[in-house]
């Protein structure tokens, strides 16, 4: 029973267009999202727990006229992405753990030369190869891992629907602002299964930012346009300083536009649970169950962990001087450090539930909220 390749292509296109609920793993969702976002090329190197992003992309891409290259390692995958972006292709990669470390050099180059690219990070246990399963230990690495200033945009997702929508959004963000853009998932989101609605973004009125050749745009250099001179090497400290200060200013300018968060705070809150990614789901459940018991518990979730929604958090904390904070994460204080930095000057007590490399349940968070008044002052 041979099905013609063209018929198969048509069937895959229907999967994207029909807007029915589908039962999927997070990795598959990302592959479909990249197709929907108009990604041209994926460069990657296998590492668990992101492998099925590559598998499904490699399987589907030819039916959508897209390409895939498995390089010899993550360094090559990252640099190949930059090459693709320079000639006007939308490129992406997916990695985790040690792969994320190797990817940092090309990412830093992208940062310096303002070359767009999208990276999907499915966090695994660390340090080193540790576990292939799950953690939130790549928060700091993903947000600020390069040898620079962390001029990146990082979306931390909490559901399959978000994986789909933020992957599409990440391509727009990267190509609109020219800062390396990340979707920070994790092994649980990669492998778990839940219902999701795929869609063609154009059918919902989402504009897709086009990719244009960066290195050789149309026209004769110096006659029709300025020459393109992308640099990642500077001879003098002052040259670098001037350039970086311009870039930092550009980043600060766009930060309010790209920063996203979720907050649900009842009047007169006693405790604010702060979590990101999949743990935020547990945090929200804990908040809701405690609210049903009459506890005035709120919830704050940075969706962009870089730039961090510090202003939004400060406004909540400033409005409730006696508010106790509880930071929950599957890492040993990476989010906690970000929160404390953003709340410098406040004296609210901050407690934490830190479980590096291990999942956190709503019950555990609810129990931590119920602990006797704990935590040290933010500053």
């Amino acid at each position, binding site marked *: 029973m*041979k*099905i013609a390749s063209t018929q198969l292509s048509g069937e895959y296109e229907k999967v994207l267009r029909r807007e029915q609920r*589908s*039962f999927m793993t997070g990795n*598959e969702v990302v592959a479909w999202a990249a197709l929907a976002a108009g990604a041209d090329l994926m460069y990657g190197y296998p590492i668990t727990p992101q492998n099925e992003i590559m598998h499904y992309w490699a399987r589907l891409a030819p039916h959508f006229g897209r390409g895939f290259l498995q390089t010899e390692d993550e360094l090559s995958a990252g640099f190949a992405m930059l090459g693709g972006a320079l000639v006007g292709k939308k490129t992406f990669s997916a990695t985790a753990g040690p792969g994320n470390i190797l990817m940092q050099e090309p990412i830093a180059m992208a940062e310096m030369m303002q070359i767009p690219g999208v990276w999907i990070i499915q966090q695994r246990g660390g340090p080193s190869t540790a*576990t292939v399963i799950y953690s939130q230990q790549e928060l700091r690495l993903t947000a600020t891992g390069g040898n620079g200033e962390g001029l990146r945009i990082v979306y931390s997702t909490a559901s399959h629907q978000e994986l789909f929508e933020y992957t599409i959004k990440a391509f727009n963000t990267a190509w609109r602002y020219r800062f390396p853009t990340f979707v920070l998932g994790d092994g649980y989101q990669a*492998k778990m299964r839940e219902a999701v609605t*795929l869609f063609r973004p154009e059918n919902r009125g989402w504009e897709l930012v086009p990719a244009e050749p960066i290195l050789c745009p149309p026209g004769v250099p110096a006659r029709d346009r300025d020459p393109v001179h992308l640099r990642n090497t500077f001879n003098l400290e002052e040259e670098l300083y001037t350039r970086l200060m311009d870039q930092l200013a550009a980043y600060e300018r766009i930060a309010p536009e790209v920063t996203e968060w979720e907050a649900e705070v009842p009047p007169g809150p006693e405790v604010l649970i702060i979590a990101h990614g999949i743990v935020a789901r547990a945090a929200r459940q804990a908040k809701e169950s405690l609210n049903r018991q009459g506890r005035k518990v709120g919830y704050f979730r940075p969706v962009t962990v870089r730039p961090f929604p510090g202003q939004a958090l400060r406004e909540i904390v400033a409005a409730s001087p006696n508010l106790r904070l509880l930071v929950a994460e599957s890492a040993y204080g990476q989010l906690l450090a970000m929160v404390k930095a953003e709340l410098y000057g406040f004296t609210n007590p901050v407690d934490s539930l830190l479980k590096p490399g291990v999942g956190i349940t709503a019950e555990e968070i609810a129990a931590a909220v119920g602990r006797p008044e704990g935590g040290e002052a933010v500053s």
Partner: protein
Amino acid sequence: MPRVLEAYVGEYASGKSENAINRALRLVREGRRVRLADLDLVEPAYTLRPLKRTLEAQGLEVLAWETKELIGPGEAAITLKKEIVSTLAFPGDVIIDVGYGVEGRRLLNLIKGAFPPANGEEALRLIMVVNAARPLTSSLPLILAYLDEFGPVDGLINNTHLGEETTVELIQEGAVLVTAAARRVGCPVVATTAWRPYARQLGPVDRMGNPVWPIERFMSGAFW
């Protein structure tokens, strides 16, 4: 009475492990001696391992790694239990949970007597689990294309569901699709399987006349 020798195969995340476990337990409840063997190509330690003790307590013999036996090569190596090679020599029913789609089928070559079958009466039957809510098996042409890529199977199971969002109508639509695919390739639909509350609503047979097998959910207790 001939032994039941079945391998559960199909698209990634189609419900192979859940169906293999439920099939094995159903046979145990019939008073049969049953072994459930884990043949997951990529994630051998993550599917049946966390459930091993639970399943053994219900009278099933489970051929899968125990946590203490495993040193965790992660993705760097595939470690299969050596007993898997001769698992069909087990003096009872054997249900094999074959992981990872088309690649998983190739792994059956490791099992003595799987291809060709040890004898005509006791051939290993390949049962493909299909969830029509999975994108790559969500239409008749897509299911047929998947079967074409996979190779011949001895039966299909309609395991259409959307997790928490499953409806009886969705399962019935899956039954229509899977039955149409089975007719096109000339194999039977073994059953429609559905989580017990839905199975109760479906009744003894689905819209296409296929038997409905209620299943319990075990995989939510496993990691991946």
